[in-house]
């Protein structure tokens, strides 16, 4: 393993000569938010349904990938169960936001159990409940999970995801079993999905740059040394685990109300695998990388639909190959991890400091001193 005990300097200390001041950065951030706001406004009024859907997908993937990267990239734990948290969030949000009458229509084989058969809450409340429920489960399983490391942690979390799916299939009076829940109201729009995405990026990025985040990175690099410096790995990792699960749960709720039909088959290990591709391609440990990875995945997934559809080249018709997309995705993951392990961003972030230092660097290079 790495023999260098390396900690990146906190952001506040790293203000290179010629870098932006805190005030300027605040203005730039505000400008960026206005830009995002404007783009969303344009798309929500003039974009086609297809474009809006892709943008929604990108935003939900960003939330998922950034919160997944917090565990896998920043804390350095190979967590393979985010599909479980997403499922918990999706079901919680769906069951709470749906009207009792609709629920009765859905549950044919067995009636929905008590508090759920009378309750209906606004969408926003259901999302917060989704996050809280996922975080609660994260808290409960963190005791066995965070006792182990490496491969064991991977398999225990994978098992958790699998158990959640099996329970969703079996607990008919709560989840309607394999039939799933249909006819959810499509609450999720660009404002909800991108609002949550922006919130998750800001919160998680602030966490990473705080002392807690530094402690998490220290644990990633060398747990024994971190412990010797007085860092309590269990509590720091648990914090990351809870926040990651919270945002995964909310994203699950958004996903449910975007596609309006959920069933246990939606939340298999494949979902986790897709998230893994995003953060590995983007660069494990980089929030910017996770965002790029999520956007690339959403865009690439659509672009690659071509290979599964019949193609017409002149008089020749090439039949589409169903399942080819997953082959390509698996190959991409393998090739990136084998030959370009750092992904697009490595562990770097695209920050204002970084941009300005690049600009300053190129200016210095141009003007001979």
């Amino acid at each position, binding site marked *: 393993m790495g023999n260098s005990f390396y900690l990146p300097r906190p952001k506040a200390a790293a203000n290179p000569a010629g870098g932006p001041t805190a005030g300027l950065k605040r203005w730039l951030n505000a400008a960026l938010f206005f830009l995002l706001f404007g783009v969303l406004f344009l798309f929500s009024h003039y974009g086609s349904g297809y474009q809006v859907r892709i943008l929604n997908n990108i935003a939900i993937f960003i939330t998922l990938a950034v919160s997944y990267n917090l565990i896998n990239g920043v804390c*350095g734990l190979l967590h393979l169960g985010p599909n479980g948290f997403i499922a918990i969030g999706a079901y919680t949000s769906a069951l709470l936001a749906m009207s009792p009458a609709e629920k009765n229509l859905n549950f044919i084989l067995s009636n929905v159990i008590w508090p759920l058969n009378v309750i209906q809450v606004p969408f926003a409340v259901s999302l917060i409940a989704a996050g809280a429920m996922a975080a609660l489960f994260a808290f409960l399983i963190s005791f066995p999970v965070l*006792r182990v490391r490496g491969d064991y942690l991977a398999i*225990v979390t994978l*098992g958790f995801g699998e158990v959640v799916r099996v329970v969703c299939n079996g607990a008919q009076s709560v989840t309607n079993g394999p039939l799933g829940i249909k006819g959810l109201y499509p609450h999720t729009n660009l404002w909800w999905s991108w609002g949550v995405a922006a919130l998750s990026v800001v919160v998680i990025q602030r966490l990473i740059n705080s002392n807690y985040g530094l402690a998490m990175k220290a644990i990633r690099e060398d747990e024994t040394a971190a412990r010797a410096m007085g860092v309590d790995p269990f509590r720091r990792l648990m914090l990351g685990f809870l926040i990651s699960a919270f945002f995964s749960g909310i994203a699950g709720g958004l996903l449910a109300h975007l596609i309006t039909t959920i069933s246990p088959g939606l939340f298999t290990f494949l979902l986790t695998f897709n998230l893994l591709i995003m953060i590995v391609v983007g660069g494990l440990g980089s929030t910017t990388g996770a965002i790029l990875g999520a956007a690339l995945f959403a865009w690439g997934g659509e672009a690659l639909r071509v290979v599964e559809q019949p193609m017409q080249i002149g008089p020749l018709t090439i039949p589409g190959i169903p*399942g080819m997309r997953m082959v390509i995705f698996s190959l991409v993951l393998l090739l990136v991890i084998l030959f370009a392990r750092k992904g697009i961003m490595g562990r770097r972030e695209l920050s204002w400091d970084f941009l300005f230092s690049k600009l300053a660097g190129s200016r210095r290079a141009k003007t001979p001193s």
Partner: protein
Amino acid sequence: MEGGQEMSATLFVQQLINGISLGSLYALIAIGYTMVYGILRLINFAHGDLLMVAAYAALYGMLLFSLPWFISFPLAIIATGAIGILLDRAAYKPLRQAPRISLLISAIGASFLMENLALVLIGGVPKAFHRPNCFSHVIIIGGLHIPVLTIYSPLVTLLLVLGLLYIVFKTRAGKAMRAASRDFEATRLMGIDLDRIIALTFLLGSSLAAASGIMWAMKYPQINPFMGVLPGLKAFIAAVLGGIGNIVGAVLGGFLLGLFEILIVALLPDLAEYRDAFAFLLLIGVLLFRPTGIMGEPFIE
């Protein structure tokens, strides 16, 4: 099943036999996990998919080349062993010096690649596995209905395990293998060609998984590209249960897991739907209370 005391005793014995039979299949797969883990400290996520490779290879050997089973099965086992070596060369060898997380991600990628490649090449529709007639008999002893396959699989497992133990404990290559699992670097310094030892490990582990895969396909004769995923995960749990890195432990863990799964469903039929979750709950229990498993040596950091 309210047939009185005697009936339920028969049923119990029947379930016991089923459990041992299922356990023997887990045991064969678990050995491959435990051997690779012993040397490379890696969960070979793609190991379960070798079951699928072997099952398809055996089936196509019989269908396309109309080979008799006693030629098709060994050929499939050899081919799977070769694919196991190839897997190591392609996905794991370039990452020997890399962080563990990269190795695991590579393993997951390899697993998905194998499954989806099979899906594209063969199609997702489950195929009926052609079971040779000599494996289809059912023996009836005093009210017990025992398919011969249920008896064969533990016997085959026993034979294969004895052969493996001979190789590991009585040959020079086996000695090198045990040395590598004790101290990888020191073994290299002793002038042992570790690449060959690792290849041999993958060959042996994959062949055993292949044998298990073929028996699995005869037991549940509908095969599909994802058939190896769940047995693979459960066999890994069996390996942890027995104490990872320990071959006898893996066999023991396999049998225990098989019995546990069958008996819990037999005793609590209401929970049959949750059958696939038990193995993982068992894993969490083991990791909480005895992380080194039954046969494992105490973990020293």
